[in-house]
């Protein structure tokens, strides 16, 4: 998939994460988290895993995490990417490998 425009998913509520994706020439992931000291590494791995599965090679991915569980993080990253390329209107391929 290709990030075509800026899109966002999620909130800043406790136990959620707000993910913003924008077009860029390279792939960059920026993570802020209320639990970064104990879970920063795992959050980064989870986000990169979803991006890899969606075959995202370029884009600025910003994650503001408020202690979301992995399942929430995955859903928010997926949704932001889908919205950025209008794949969120119908036949949403939740959790599916898009290659």
């Amino acid at each position: 998939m290709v990030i075509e425009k800026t899109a966002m998913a999620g909130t800043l509520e406790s136990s959620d994460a707000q993910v913003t994706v924008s077009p860029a020439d390279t792939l960059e992931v920026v993570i802020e988290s209320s639990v970064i000291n104990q879970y920063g590494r795992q959050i980064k791995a989870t986000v990169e895993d979803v991006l890899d599965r969606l075959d995202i090679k370029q884009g600025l991915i910003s994650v503001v995490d408020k202690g979301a569980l992995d399942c929430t993080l995955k859903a928010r990253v997926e949704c932001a990417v889908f919205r950025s390329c209008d794949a969120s209107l119908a036949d949403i391929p939740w959790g599916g490998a898009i290659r």
Partner: protein
Amino acid sequence: MINAVGRDIPDYLLADGKEVYQGRFAKDGQLVKRDSPTCVMHEKPVADKLCASIREACEHCDVHDGMTISFHSEFRNGDYTASQVVKVLVEDFGVRDLHVAATSLGDAHDLLADYIEQGIITHIESSGVRGRIGEAISHGKLKEPAIIRSHGGRPRAMMAGELHVDVTFLAASTSDKAGNASGVGGKNNCGSLGFAIPDSQYADKVVIITDTLVDFPNVPASIKCEDVDYVVVVDEIGDPKRIASKEARFTQDPRELMMAKNAADVIAALPYFKNGFSFQTGVGGPSLAVNRFLEDHMREKNIKMGFALGGVSGAICNLLDKGLVGKIIDVQDFDQTAINHLANNPNHVEMSQSEYANPGSKGSFVNYLDYMVLSALEIDTKFNVNVVTGSDGVVRGAPGGHPDTAATSKCCIIVTPLVRGRMPVVCKDVTTVTTPGECVDVLVTDYGTAVNPARTDIIECLDAAGIPHVSIESLQEKAYSIVGEPDPLQWEDKVVAIVEARDGTILDVIRQIKPYDFE
């Protein structure tokens, strides 16, 4: 040196006879020579002890660089006094290298955090350290490590001469011209002045700060005129509406109510649940809610509580008013209901912080406690509890009476959710040990109850009552299966705070936190 809870205490901290924690009751029977304050004789009668301002009182108190001052925290987040006094000392008198010893410090004291950042306040001794002060300490801004003590450990340290206060500034809701002072009867009432009483007896100079001057004699008095040097009248000593903070909320959360009910069921299943039993709860949501479920068990079995200790909230006052509690013995009030109740009910009486929990005394009230219900930030598979450092390693909590009541009560119950957001409360190793696992008997979570294997008697009682329980390891595994296993925190070498056990030995140290690095 490794101590009795498995924590490595750096040898350089073990100078001047300081020891590592050797287990609960390890110091029982030891002799202590009590420290005594230096008292200025007031032989000749004077009209009054009034000073026109905090500044004038300070002029009489020989303020100097390196001095130790103290405050009580009965106004909690509504305290105005500590900041007012420290500002005068720093701005008007230019005092530097200031040592602050308070019963607790929190969001009301951001000004003190500024002075720590500027290197003006160089040492902190306190029970609680919340808000920006905790951040400043954890980022290594103090010259010497802060000392964190329990409510019982603080008066013990004062009596043993380990904490010597030069001047104490004590907010009082009412005072007369001679310094007979009380936490009730004024325009801003905090209720019990229990935290202030040891300071009034062990500090060299005692200044009462009030906003309601009443006729002499203001009796019964919490602080006696024989202990007071000066009295200052200010506009406002604090805001009692901010005593009930979010830590002291009354929960409506069904998950917390379920845990509270399960904790009450455990209480009722043990042999201590009989006429005249004694009970205390901490101020966390679910532990406070145990009060309301206990009532059903008491009525069903026709059992009355002999006395409640506290840390007093409206919930326990209501039980007394219903005739279900004999006496409330009160070191601190958590809400307006409790404050008014102390003022008006003869069976609700004040006690000092030393009477409450001092292990260096001839026996404090906590020694007679049957049940203690408490919260935790973290509890590990050895039942060690942390209530002082957050999951990011920053100091942001208060042991308060947690270690004292856990150590002495016949049954200490921790009530906490298994996870908070992504943080596993039940974990393999707590960040900081504030209450040793040998003092904790039962853990009630939303995913099940665990009993300390050392308490086979409690296990038998729960089995007999049909109350299910699981191993604490299974709860920890459940927590990690939901949130993932946390990475270890990254620390600098520098020790920023020492957690003292209630007997004065070193239970744990808190180190400076490293900025997070993904690599």
